[in-house]
């Protein structure tokens, strides 16, 4: 199976601080891979490098056979990587449906010369709306179409974020603590949902998570970061029993 994401010896220095110090890892297509480590180990920094917010001081990032380090965040998205944040970042003045239709790229109506002319983008808009409604219905969110995004529950918000990714052709999702702030059962539901997406749509997930009790049951493979370096990696039960990992978590 091919790797959809390859991180090759990536380092990120901020002045004297080495947030990442030579990390190499792979995410296979259709993989659900975990990224764990104590606070400050560099997990979010790694996501920031992959998604284009930082340029790595050293190393390369390859996605789908193309080199993507150094691209701007919007370009990375257009390549097919969706990145979510710990706190769902939806757009408050747009309704749920609008939040979803906003996402697909290359919309004619977003070009300033075409925007004032309705006929130039009407058809595409309706097509996208239909696709959005279809997806929302699939995930049981259809009746919330009109809802104000600020009134949604945390779980719903996270689902909307995923739907936003689904309406594009993204193949890789970088999820930053998807289980944060939700109840245990909801968290497990979210992860089953992720597994379902992997099976049905062939998507890959790279997930930062602190709630190991939820994460470990759903991932194929885990990478452990500590002080910007890979401390350990392997299948979930291997990693959990690795004495280095235990020490890092207890000590850190």
């Amino acid at each position: 199976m091919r790797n959809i994401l390859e991180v090759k010896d990536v380092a990120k220095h901020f002045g004297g601080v080495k947030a990442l110090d030579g990390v190499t890892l792979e995410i296979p297509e259709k993989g659900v891979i975990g990224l764990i480590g104590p606070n400050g180990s560099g997990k979010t920094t790694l996501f920031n490098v992959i998604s284009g917010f930082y340029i790595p001081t050293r190393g390369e990032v390859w996605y789908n056979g193309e080199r993507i380090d150094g691209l701007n965040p919007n370009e990375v998205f257009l390549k097919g990587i969706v990145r979510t944040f710990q706190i769902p970042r939806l757009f408050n003045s747009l309704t749920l449906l609008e939040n979803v239709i906003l996402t697909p790229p290359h919309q004619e109506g977003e070009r300033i010369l075409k925007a004032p002319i309705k006929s130039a983008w009407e058809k595409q808009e309706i097509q996208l709306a239909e696709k959005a409604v279809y997806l929302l219905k699939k995930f049981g969110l259809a009746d919330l179409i009109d809802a104000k995004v600020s009134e949604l529950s945390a779980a719903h918000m996270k689902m909307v974020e995923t739907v936003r990714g689904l309406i594009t052709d993204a193949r890789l999702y970088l999820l930053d603590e998807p289980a944060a702030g939700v109840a245990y059962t909801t968290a497990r539901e979210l992860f089953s949902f992720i597994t379902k997406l992997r099976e049905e749509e062939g998507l890959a997930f790279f997930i930062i998570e602190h709630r190991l009790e939820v994460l470990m049951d759903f991932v194929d493979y885990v990478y452990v970061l500590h002080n910007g370096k890979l401390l350990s990696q392997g299948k979930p039960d291997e990693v959990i029993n690795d004495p280095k990992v235990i020490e890092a978590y207890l000590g850190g």
Partner: protein
Amino acid sequence: MINPNQILTMVHIGLIYMVLAVPLTLSYKTTKIINFVHINFITYGAYMAVFLYSVIGLKNVFVAAVAAFLLGGMMAVIDNVFVFEPLRRRGANVVILMIASLGLWIFYKYFLYSVVDAASRVIKVNLVSQLIRFENFPSLYVGGYVVKGSLLMTILFSFLLMGLLYIILQKTAIGKAIRAISDNPGLAEISGIPRSKVLNFMWFLAGGIASIGGMLWITYAIATPEVGDTLILQIFAIAVIGGLNSLLWTSVGAFIIAAAETIGMALLNQYFGVPTSFKPFITFSTLLTVIIAFPPLGAGGGLPYRFIKKRRGEK
């Protein structure tokens, strides 16, 4: 050539700028609000001195300083309690708060204009243009050059105020609380710091110190109700040099700008024939250059500015 008078002027202006800019940096880094009322702290402090001096006839600078401090401090606290905090509670973001401060600034400015106008007519003295000469500090004659009393006064007050501020921020509990809020608001919130009280105290300091700065300024230049407005862009430029974060660098910036204005302007005038009316141009250009070349790190929260220059580094 540069003559010592220019250096004295530079020091004089630099010190006042420091007193005016440091509180701006302090209030911005703690609240992330660009507060237009800072302009009014300066003007109102100046005019408190004018009123005591010209209307009531009280010519003691220490009394004026205390009065100015209290006035500016109270203005700041009132603004926070009645406008900023209620807006913030309703979820206003910093842009809205900035606009609110803009409204306040406009109101305060023209309120003062009206009062000064009316007072001028009543006491038959032109208060719209006033020169204050406090008598407490005599002028010194050093090696043939005059060190004006106002300069000595400025030296004393600026050192006093900056020293006081330093002690408060570094050695007292409330000062440390202020620094906690500015450096790490999330953590500060969790650790049970009484946010409102601490912020109000910070505003009191910021407003008060800026007001004394206003008072000091009009011992150097003529007082008009536009005093704060004519100074604010230099002050802001200075705060920007401090990254809107470092009180130390703000102080340094104060002298950089003062130097640019006095010595820099003089040199441009002498060697390039640039007219002195171009002075604001120098300040604005400096401000723009500093803002664009060295964006306030973490203060403005700009986009990953790599959009402009590829391969430049971090956010």
